């Protein structure tokens, strides 16, 4: 949490402003994923399904009818939804709520699965939502981009919501439910023997996670002022998962750190890629790299994930959290107990 605060001080120029805002939204999404993945030990690829739901929901509710006529020209004008026009805050909350409700409904079916089938099912969910979004032209303008969304998200908004989600994530993790979930993550049979209902705890985490994702979606749509299902699909899912894994799925700090690292790293890599391409044209680098460099960031990122998983399977933070305790440790002379964390990505016993 404190990390985020430090970063807000950094806002200097406008370009950086934008990067940091995106980063905060990514932090939000990453932490949202952590609520579920970190505590349950199950991999989920469905996050962006809820991002999409949330984004569209927020669009439906925040656009005035005039704006809707331009942005969503296929929406029937006599729908109740058409006339809806709420302040951004309400629209955002509603988006999160809708995403959470959808998550809850689907979650009832999903929590009965575990391990690989579960992850595949979340993958299927992502695809289903993507397909539906691509087809349901009245609501989403199909595969075309919805343009002209008013910009409601700025640095402050992104930061605030990210901070709120971080707090919620912490609260959940340390709560009774979170503890139960983590117990079932470690050893499901043992947890069941003391009365932990793994499916229920998973469901709660899943729904919360879906809500957070929806929230992120709403923020995002109103930041870049456009939305299309194409842009919120596999590649972005990969990014979020990367953020979480590199940072460490077991801790909220990990999610934050991961998001920050990946966001900044991506920026750097993108600039590097541009530089390489430019240099290629002008200097002799062209003979060394005879093709246009594209997707460079992805490659590095994928390699990074693989490396991290080989060396530090629990991520860079190894599941530890930055709490007030850890700052006290910096003060000499004070003996402070710090809470150790259990590896969220299960090691076979």
């Amino acid at each position, binding site marked *: 949490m404190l990390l985020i605060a430090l970063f807000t001080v950094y806002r200097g120029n406008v370009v950086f402003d934008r990067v940091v805002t995106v980063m905060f939204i990514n932090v939000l999404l990453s932490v949202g994923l952590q609520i579920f993945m970190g505590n349950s*030990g199950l991999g989920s690829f469905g996050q962006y399904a809820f991002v999409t739901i949330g984004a569209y929901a927020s669009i439906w509710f925040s656009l005035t009818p005039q704006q809707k006529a331009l942005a969503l020209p296929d929406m029937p004008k006599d729908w109740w939804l058409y006339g809806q026009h709420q302040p951004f805050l309400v629209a955002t909350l509603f988006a999160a709520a809708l995403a959470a409700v959808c998550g809850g409904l689907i979650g009832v079916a999903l929590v009965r699965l575990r391990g*690989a089938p579960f992850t595949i*099912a979340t993958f*299927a969910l992502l695809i289903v939502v993507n397909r539906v979004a691509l087809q349901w032209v009245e609501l989403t303008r199909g595969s075309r981009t919805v343009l002209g969304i008013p910009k409601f998200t700025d640095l402050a908004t992104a930061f605030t919501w990210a901070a709120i989600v971080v707090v919620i994530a912490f609260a959940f993790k340390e709560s009774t439910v979170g503890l139960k979930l983590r117990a079932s993550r470690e050893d499901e049979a043992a947890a069941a023997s003391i009365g932990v209902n793994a499916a229920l705890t998973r469901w709660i985490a899943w729904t919360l996670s879906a809500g957070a994702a929806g929230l992120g979606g709403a923020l995002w749509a109103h930041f870049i002022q456009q939305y299309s299902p194409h842009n919120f699909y596999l590649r972005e899912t990969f990014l979020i998962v990367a953020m979480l894994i590199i940072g460490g799925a077991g801790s909220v700090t990990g999610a934050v750190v991961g998001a920050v690292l990946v966001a900044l790293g991506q920026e750097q890599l993108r600039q590097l890629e541009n530089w390489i391409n430019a240099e290629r044209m002008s200097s002799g680098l062209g003979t060394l790299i005879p093709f246009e460099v594209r997707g460079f960031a992805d490659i590095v*990122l994928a390699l990074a994930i693989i490396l991290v998983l080989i060396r530090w399977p629990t991520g860079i933070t190894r599941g530890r959290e930055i709490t007030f305790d850890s700052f006290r440790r910096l003060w000499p002379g004070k003996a402070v107990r710090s809470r150790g964390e259990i590896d969220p990505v299960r090691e076979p016993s």
Partner: protein
Amino acid sequence: MDAINDGIQYLISSLSLGGLYALMALGLVIVYGILRLVNFAYGELVMIGGYGLLLFGDSPLPWIMVALLSVIVAVIAGVLMERIAFRPVRDSSPTTMLITSFALSTLLQSVALLTVSPRPRAPRLPSIFVESFTIGGLQIKIVDLIGIIIGVLALVALTVFLRRTVIGLALRAAADDFTMTRLLGVPANRVIAAAFAISGLMAGIVALFWIGRTGQTYPTVGLQPVLIAFIASVVGGMESLRGAVLGGYVLGFLTMGLQTWLPQGVNNYRDAVMFGIVIVVLLLRPQGLIRPAYSREVR
């Protein structure tokens, strides 16, 4: 009669598609059974096979050779994949391995994007892929028939391999209880490499037919096969090879059925409906249609 014609048509295309799907699922489950690894990069094996087709197709070799070579390339890729990417994480949790495979998949796609081209390229394909012949009012695509035959052949060959050869036995034992198998002296590395080789083989064959159907290859061509493989194996039961095959055929029949009989307006939602049905199946039978020998209590 029209209804019978339609019925036979449906049967043939479903069998063909189902066989293809079954092969896809098999390639995935063979690795999963032993390692509990869901190999996202399996799709990229198909992609590699496809690009092999492209590469070798440019040479003057007869197409059979081209096909054979690209399958071999896929097999080699599979074994390499295991050696380089998966062996270091072999002892980690399933989730770790899964994410590794996801990262590997993205990596391979990006490399292909970078080095070859993001645009779809059409490899040289023999004309039998588009020809069809008519029997008594039925139009049957030759590739469908070949698909059915090859599908059945592959399944039979695999079954024989697993039942009659030493490695096959080792694979089955490993899928049952890997630790015990190793304790009995079976070399783990060889078994796992064999599994990945078979996976690559399946991917190679799938690549032939999949790209033969669509006519193009591109970096993300592996996405749909791997997705189908996932769904088929989850529906059929990931713990058993028979489940994978069953799941493949079920999915094939389902896809064809939806395509033929869904009303026009809803047709675009076909994928969504299909996955919806899958989720329902999972709700009722989380272990898949064919239960493994020992099923853990799912509460």
